[in-house]
Structure formats: structure tokens, C-alpha cells
């Protein structure tokens, strides 16, 4: 009964909204030309300029920001000089490419098994063959440095939050916020204080990946089987003994999985941090996107994908190796030690070789297939866009004309107070009065920022992409949830999809759809489908088997089981997936500023490249944050109220 009422209310709000929008279309839309500043954005710009001007004089800089910047830059440069850039007076890094390959092979072999080591080596060599050796090394160095520093902070804090309810309570809002915040938003504020360059990029990466390390470590400690811990206390263990002898050993596998997640987050951030001067593979990706050279983008993109698979496979294999506490037989252990010892010696020999033989030190220029890859992909893209025009452009135009444009008219070209009231009313109906009040506050701030219109453009794209994502994602999710064969087939793609940096998805989409709004939307869809499918399929699979059996015995058809049993029982998972999907989509849609999506993302990127637009870019970043929190709160509340 109340449910029916709710949907009636929503339809009512929608009808009034559409009517008002028709009547007042184009009035009070708060539109602002791209290059135009409001007094607020220019004063933010002035403030940013004065911060920048203070860099050599201000006490905060001299005693805080600058020393941190120097220390972190120094740390990263040491790692880079080992594997990537010429060290000291030498013309080569401390370890040449052959040595790096040997180290990777040895490390992966020692922590997991031969097959994973072979995969890792092949991927690394492929990066070299793509002509991306040094970029790859820079990315690895940056990722390694940021992960090391992130874990140094994240694991201890995570352990603390795992043991203390108070610490967790204090941290939770920040951890939640970090999950909502799109990567793009982190960059400009950090660059303001730490300059463009490796330090900013490393710190931004840390800010992004530390919450992940904290969250998973705390979760690992909290979700342990409590019975051994209680037993340990009953025997008189001190808190320290309980931690080191009971909790940490038990949580080890989960913490290594946390390291895997931290590594993947850091990698995806290091790639995007090219925007604030991070060395590495992000740079050729950005360059290719700017000049719209899909083939060139593919070359760099492949290298990113290879590095992602390399890091993911090797860290998750290491976690898998910890699955059981039962060790092998002593004979197997001895044989393992001999293997590791021998391969270690081999690795050391390779390192020395890579320091003395030039062709093993510097990646040989003759092994380079980047031009071929570029040509082939450009060719393929051209073929697709000319021959499959009807599908790509047809689909794009269909969505643009029938979904995107009408929704944009409704959201961005109605008077601002009409749209704002409509959103607040919707929030009230599905989330309750408190969420409605929060939404009012957040949206009012967006209005005050002067970027309302741009925010509504971004929101439109986010909603359209989410709708399409959910349509595809729920269908696939049901399939994967019901069929273990489907799971087997799709699982590798879902895993890979979750680990790839959002940035690289832009490249093929740019090839298919050209620089348009739709490119960002399509990228958002492709990027967020894996997470949606995962959550929905887990929800479907966790429906108790007894419910399915009861429905089957009662004579239900497959369709009835899905619609009347599984979907209602998995409703919470679906809402949760919608929330996650929206947050993922938002993160990508703003990056789409690169390929012509407009909206807030474009302003952020513009702010990074044009000094006079810096203020507006910073405000746009803040508006993205406000928009993200609004979306998240409304979606969370609707999930909670079911």
C-alpha cells in the first residue's frame, strides 16, 4: 500500500516537473560561458594564486609543505633511479631492464608459482616491445613508492581502527567520503600545495589509496572468528600478545588482499596523476587523448592494461598462497627452498649482467612494435567507424536524441529552483525528510558556487549512464548469479574490468564514438558494469536455496522464480549496486571532460591547464564532491529504507 503510494508520488513529482520545465524552459538556468568567471570563482582563483605566490615565503610552506615535498620527491627519485632513470653520473639506471625482469620473475616465483611468474615476465616484456619500457618503469616506481608509503600509514591505522570502535567511528566519515570522491577531484588542490610533479602525484595517490588500505585492514581485524581471540584473552594474553600472536596471523590473508586492492587503486591513480605531472604511462595516454590519436592511445593503453594484470595477478596469487595455514610436507618445503635459492642466484646474476652489458641495460630500440600496433588499431577503428557506422553512431544518436537530450532539457534547462525542488522532493519520497534536508543544503551550495548548470549537465550524463549500466548490469548479474557456467566465463572479465584504470577505457570509446558526450557515458557504462554485475550476482546467489526449492516445488516457471523470488530477495543488493554504479559512473563521466563531455569535469581539466581558470576548476572539483555526496546519500537512504 505504502509502496504504491510512493511510486504515485514519484510520478506526480515527475509530471509537475516536466510541465513546469516546458513552461519556463530556458529561464533562470544559471548558465555560464566556459571562459566566464563569477566573483566567487575568481576570488577562489585569487586565493589559489596567493597560495602559489606564498610558496617561497609562507611559514606553512617553508616548514610543512616544502619539506614534505622534498622528502617524497627524494624518495620517489631514488626508486626511479634504480629502475627507470639514469642514476648519478651513469647513463643507465642502477638496474637495467634485464635485471628488472629478473627481479619481477624471482619475486613472483618466490611468493606464488611458476605460471604466474611466466605471465608476469611476458607482460613486462610486452610493455617493452610496445616501446613503453621507461614509462612502464616510471609507473611501477611511482606505484611502488605510493603503495609503500600508503601501507606504512594505512595498515597501522587500519589495525587501530580494527581494535578500537572509537577510532573507527572517527574515521568512518572520511573513509566513506573517500569512496565517493572521483579521482579527478583530488588533483588540483594537492598540486596547489605541493606543486605539479612527482610529490603531488605521490601524495594524491596516497590520499586515494590509504583509505582503501585502512578499510580493508580494519575489516580484516574486525571480521575474524572471535572465539580464538576470546580464548587468548581468557588465558591472560596482553593486548600486544593478542595482536601479534592471534589477530595478525589470522588476518594475514585478508591483509594481503588489502595490499592487492591498494596496489590496484594506486596504479589507476598514478595513471591519471599524469595530469599533475606524474611520470609514467599516464603521460602517453593523456597525450594521445589530447590529440585524439586512438592508435597511439592504444599502445600506451595496452601497456597500462599489462601492468595492471601483472600487479593484480602477482599480488592476488601471493594472497592465494596464504589461503591455508597448513604448510606443505617438509620435503616439499625443502624442495621449494632449493628452487627459490637457485632462482635467487639467477636473479642476482641477471642484475649484474644488466649493469655491465648495454643491450641488457637499455631496452634495445630494435625491439619495438608500437608503430605496427598503432597502425593496426587506427586501421581497425577506421574500419569499424565506417562500416559499423550504423551501430556506433546509430546507437549514439538514438540515446542522445531520445534519452540524453530530453533529460538534459529537464535538469539543466529548467529554472534552477524547479530542478532543485524536484530533486529534493524525490529525495524526500525515497529517502525521507533528513535526506531531503541534506540534499537541499548540498544542492544550494552548488547553486551558490555558480556552477549549477554545469553540475546538471554532469548529473544528466551520470543518470543516463547509470540507467544503461543498470539495464545491462542487472541482466548480466542475474545470468551470472544463476549459472555457474556464466560465472566461469565472465569472472575473468569482471575481475580485469575492476582492476583497470578508468582512464584507459576512454581510448577505445573515443575510437568508436569520437569526442562527444556519449563517449564519456559509454566509458562510464563499460567501467561500472563489472562492479554492478558482481554485486547483483552475489545478491542473487545469496538467496537461500530453500526459497528457490520451495518456489520450484510449488511449480514456478524460471521466469516466475526470477521475478517473484530472486529479484525481490536481492533487492537490497540491486539498490547497493545502483549506488556503487552511480559513484563509478560519476568518476568516469567527469574524466570524460577530456573527450568532450563538458560539464564539471571539463572545467576541472581546464582549470589545470589555464591559470585564469584555476579558481573555476577548483570550485568545479568541489561541486563534483557535493554532487557525489548528494547522489550517494539519496541512493543509500533508499537502500536502507527497504
Amino acid at each position, binding site marked *: 500500500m505504502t509502496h504504491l503510494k510512493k511510486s504515485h508520488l514519484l510520478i506526480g513529482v515527475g509530471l509537475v516537473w516536466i510541465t513546469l520545465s516546458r513552461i519556463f524552459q530556458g529561464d533562470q538556468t544559471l548558465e555560464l560561458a566556459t571562459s566566464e568567471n563569477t566573483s566567487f570563482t575568481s576570488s577562489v582563483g585569487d586565493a589559489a594564486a596567493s597560495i602559489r605566490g606564498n610558496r617561497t615565503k609562507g611559514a606553512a610552506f617553508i616548514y610543512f609543505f616544502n619539506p614534505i615535498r622534498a622528502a617524497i620527491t627524494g624518495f620517489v627519485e631514488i626508486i626511479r633511479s634504480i629502475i627507470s632513470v639514469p642514476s648519478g653520473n651513469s647513463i643507465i639506471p642502477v638496474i637495467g631492464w634485464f635485471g628488472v625482469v629478473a627481479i619481477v620473475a624471482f619475486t613472483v616465483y618466490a611468493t606464488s608459482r611458476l605460471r604466474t611468474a611466466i605471465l608476469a615476465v611476458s607482460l613486462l616484456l610486452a610493455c617493452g616491445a610496445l616501446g613503453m619500457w621507461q614509462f612502464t618503469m616510471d609507473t611501477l616506481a611511482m606505484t611502488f613508492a605510493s603503495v609503500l608509503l600508503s601501507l606504512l600509514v594505512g595498515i597501522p591505522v587500519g589495525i587501530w581502527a580494527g581494535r578500537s570502535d572509537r577510532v573507527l567511528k572517527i574515521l568512518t566519515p572520511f573513509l566513506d567520503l573517500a569512496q565517493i570522491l572521483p579521482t579527478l577531484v583530488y588533483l588540483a588542490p594537492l598540486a596547489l600545495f605541493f606543486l605539479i610533479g612527482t610529490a603531488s602525484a605521490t601524495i594524491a595517490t596516497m590520499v586515494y589509496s590509504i583509505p582503501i588500505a585502512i578499510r580493508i585492514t580494519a575489516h580484516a581485524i574486525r571480521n575474524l572468528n572471535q572465539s580464538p581471540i576470546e580464548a587468548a584473552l581468557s588465558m*591472560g594474553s596482553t593486548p600486544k600478545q593478542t595482536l601479534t600472536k592471534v589477530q595478525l596471523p589470522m588476518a594475514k590473508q585478508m591483509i594481503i588482499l588489502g595490499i592487492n586492492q591498494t596496489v590496484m587503486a594506486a596504479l589507476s591513480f598514478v595513471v591519471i596523476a599524469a595530469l599533475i605531472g606524474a611520470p609514467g604511462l599516464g603521460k602517453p595516454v593523456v597525450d594521445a587523448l589530447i590529440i585524439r590519436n586512438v592508435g597511439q592511445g592504444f599502445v600506451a593503453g595496452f601497456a597500462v592494461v599489462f601492468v595492471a594484470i601483472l600487479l593484480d595477478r602477482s599480488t592476488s596469487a601471493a594472497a592465494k598462497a596464504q589461503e591455508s595455514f597448513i604448510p606443505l610436507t617438509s620435503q616439499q618445503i625443502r624442495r621449494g627452498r632449493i628452487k627459490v635459492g637457485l632462482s635467487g642466484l639467477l636473479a642476482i646474476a641477471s642484475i649484474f649482467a644488466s649493469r655491465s652489458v648495454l643491450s641488457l641495460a637499455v631496452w634495445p630500440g630494435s625491439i619495438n612494435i608500437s608503430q605496427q600496433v598503432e597502425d593496426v588499431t587506427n586501421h581497425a577503428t577506421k574500419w569499424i567507424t565506417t562500416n559499423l557506422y550504423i551501430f556506433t553512431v546509430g546507437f549514439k544518436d538514438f540515446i542522445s536524441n531520445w534519452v540524453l537530450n530530453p533529460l538534459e532539457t529537464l535538469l539543466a534547462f529548467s529554472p534552477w529552483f524547479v530542478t532543485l525542488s524536484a530533486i529534493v522532493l524525490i529525495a524526500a519520497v525515497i529517502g525521507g525528510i533528513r535526506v531531503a534536508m541534506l540534499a537541499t543544503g548540498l544542492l544550494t551550495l552548488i547553486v551558490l558556487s555558480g556552477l549549477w548548470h554545469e553540475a546538471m549537465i554532469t548529473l544528466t550524463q551520470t543518470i543516463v549512464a547509470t540507467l544503461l549500466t543498470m539495464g545491462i548490469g542487472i541482466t548480466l548479474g542475474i545470468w551470472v548469479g544463476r549459472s555457474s557456467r556464466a560465472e566461469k566465463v565472465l569472472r575473468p572479465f569482471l575481475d580485469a574490468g575492476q582492476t583497470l584504470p578508468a582512464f584507459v577505457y576512454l581510448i577505445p570509446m573515443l575510437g568508436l564514438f569520437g569526442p562527444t558526450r556519449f563517449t564519456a557515458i559509454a566509458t562510464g557504462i563499460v567501467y561500472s558494469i563489472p562492479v554492478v554485475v558482481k554485486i547483483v550476482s552475489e545478491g542473487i546467489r545469496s538467496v537461500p536455496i530453500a526459497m528457490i526449492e520451495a518456489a520450484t516445488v510449488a511449480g514456478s516457471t524460471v521466469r516466475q522464480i526470477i521475478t517473484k523470488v530472486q529479484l525481490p530477495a536481492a533487492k537490497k543488493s540491486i539498490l547497493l549496486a545502483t549506488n556503487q554504479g552511480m559513484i563509478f559512473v560519476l568518476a568516469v563521466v567527469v574524466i570524460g571532460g577530456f573527450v568532450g563531455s563538458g560539464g564539471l569535469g571539463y572545467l576541472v581539466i581546464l582549470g589545470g591547464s589555464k591559470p585564469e581558470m584555476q579558481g573555476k576548476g577548483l570550485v568545479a572539483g568541489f561541486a563534483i564532491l557535493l554532487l557525489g555526496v548528494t547522489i550517494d546519500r539519496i541512493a543509500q537512504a533508499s537502500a536502507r529504507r527497504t
Partner: protein
Amino acid sequence: MVEEQRSASSGGASDGRPPAVSVRGLWKVYGPNPLSIVGSPDATLSRSELRAKTGCTSAVSDVSFDVAPGEVFVVMGLSGSGKSTLIRCLTRLVEPTAGEVFLDGEDISKATPQRLRELRRQHFSMVFQHFGLLPHRKVIDNIAYPLEINGMKKAERHARANEVIELVGLHGYAHAFPEQLSGGMQQRVGLARALAVDPQVLFLDEPFSALDPLIRRDMQQEVIRLHRELGKTMVFITHDLSEAVKVGDRIAIMRDGAIVQIGTPEELVARPIDDYVANFVRDIAKSHVLTLKYLARPALSGEDIDGPELAANMIIRDAAEIILQTHKPVRVSENGKFLGIVSSEDILRLISGVA
């Protein structure tokens, strides 16, 4: 009647030694301002009324009892009766709201964290329903854990662990990991670990509830054997009355956080204090618990009173064969004093439940 009152109040330490465990007015109340409930009129409300009125739940309400040295004291109750909270209050894994717990005369509710750790390391230990073994350690290192945290050297603690391994019948399993063992074997490890420090008191929290019935019976025998060999004082929690009767010297029956009745198995079966206890003990085979004293009655006119004589403290089940084979009623006497007679009919009536 007199005897029942005595044992309920003073704890059946018949030899005058001070009790090993003594609990006085113990409370555990969850909720806002828990101390205000202790001893107040509200405490007499039912659980749901109390929660409705104050938002508090009283898990343990004004519990007092004594456990004699070497005694096996069983706390028996259904789930939610507060027995698990009670045993955790005794070891301060849960902090009691009010009351005192004396172990060998020392009030552990006042012990500093330091002293509490000492007591836990040396004076008492605990066995858990879900074993609580460390999955990353071998059996021997699980058993040696309490010695290890007390700073004992590796060779020494392994030697001690090996002794206990033999004691509980884990021979040959020292280097297995917990997940390689069956539930029953895992609980043997739990028992061994608790015995490793040679504690004065052993607390067992539903130690066999997670095991299947056949294994459970073996383990109950094992506890009885260990108790006979080592003579440890035990506080044993269970929800299974037949287990309580089997292992317990005395049983406390708990309901809604309070103790309803304390007594020997015989006392509970013979004279349940209320319908609740009566309901519980209904399914217990009386002949397995009661002694001849319970059946002894004056002779009716015409009955033979020159039958064979049996001791009053003989379990009826054990006496049944003799009585049924004798054609006369048997004479029951206690310390030479004649209490009455028991006939074959009395036995049959009791066993068939007609009585």
C-alpha cells in the same frame, strides 16, 4: 528438605574447607545506566517488562553460589538464560555490573588488569564451545600458547605440552593443524590447552554442544576420567540436563538470568522446587539418578521385613536387579539406621513412570 536448603545456601562443601569459587550477588545488566537496576524493584520484572520500562536487559540477576574444591558444579539453562554471560563474568571476559567473585578467597572482580592476567595465566582456565583454537598453529603450539605468553622457554613448554597431549589422548597429533582434526579431537586440544597451566579451576562453556551425540558421550566420559585423575574444580555450563546429571556433583538451574534451584541431581529430580524445574527433570530416568532412600517407605501390614539389607545411597538402577530377583522387599538403611523397605513393585512403578 533440610538438606536441600543447606546445599542451596552454603554450597555443599561438606568438609569445611573454604570454597574454590564463591559468587556473591553477581549482576550483569546491559543497557543505559545498568547500575540503577541492580537490587531495585525493577529487577523483579520479567525481561520484556524490564526492557520496555528501562531499556535494560538483565543477563545475570543476583546470582550467588559456592563451589567446593574438587567439585564439578554445573550451570544448566536454556539458550538466553544467561549461563554464558555468567561464566564470562566469573572470568571477567565480561565485566560484571555488580557483585563479587572469589577464587580461592581472592576477589577477582577487584583485580587490576595485571593481576587478572596473572590469575588467568596460572589459576584458572577455560574451555569454549567453539574451541577457540588458533588456526595458524599446530596442536602442540596451541597447547603451549598459555605457557608461551607466560614467558616459558620453547623446549620446556613443548615438553609440558607433550605431557598434556598424552593425558587427553591426542597422541600422534602434536604436529597436526586444528582444521585437520575432527570436532571431538579439536575439543581435546581445547581441554589440553586449558590443562597445560595446571590450573586450580577449570571453566567449561558448553564444551560439547558443538559435537555430535556419539562424540559428545565419549568426551563426557573423558571429562569424568580427567576429573577422577586430576581432581580439578570445574564449573561446567550446559543446556543439556542429561549431560549435567552425568558430569555434575551439583547442578544450578538458571532461568532468565537468575538461579532457580541448586542441588545434587537426586535432589532436583526428587524435589523440583517449581514447575519449571519439574518440567526439565521430567525426561530424566529417575532410576538413574535417585537412590533407594527416595523409595524407602514403612512396611505395610503383612509385608515381609526380613529381606536383604541395602544401603540408602545406592542408585535405584543398580539396586533394581537385586530387588527384582529377591522375592521379599529389601530393607533400606543408612549408617545402620533402618529407613524403610522397597519392594519389586515400587521399582517397577518408578521405572514405568506410574508413580
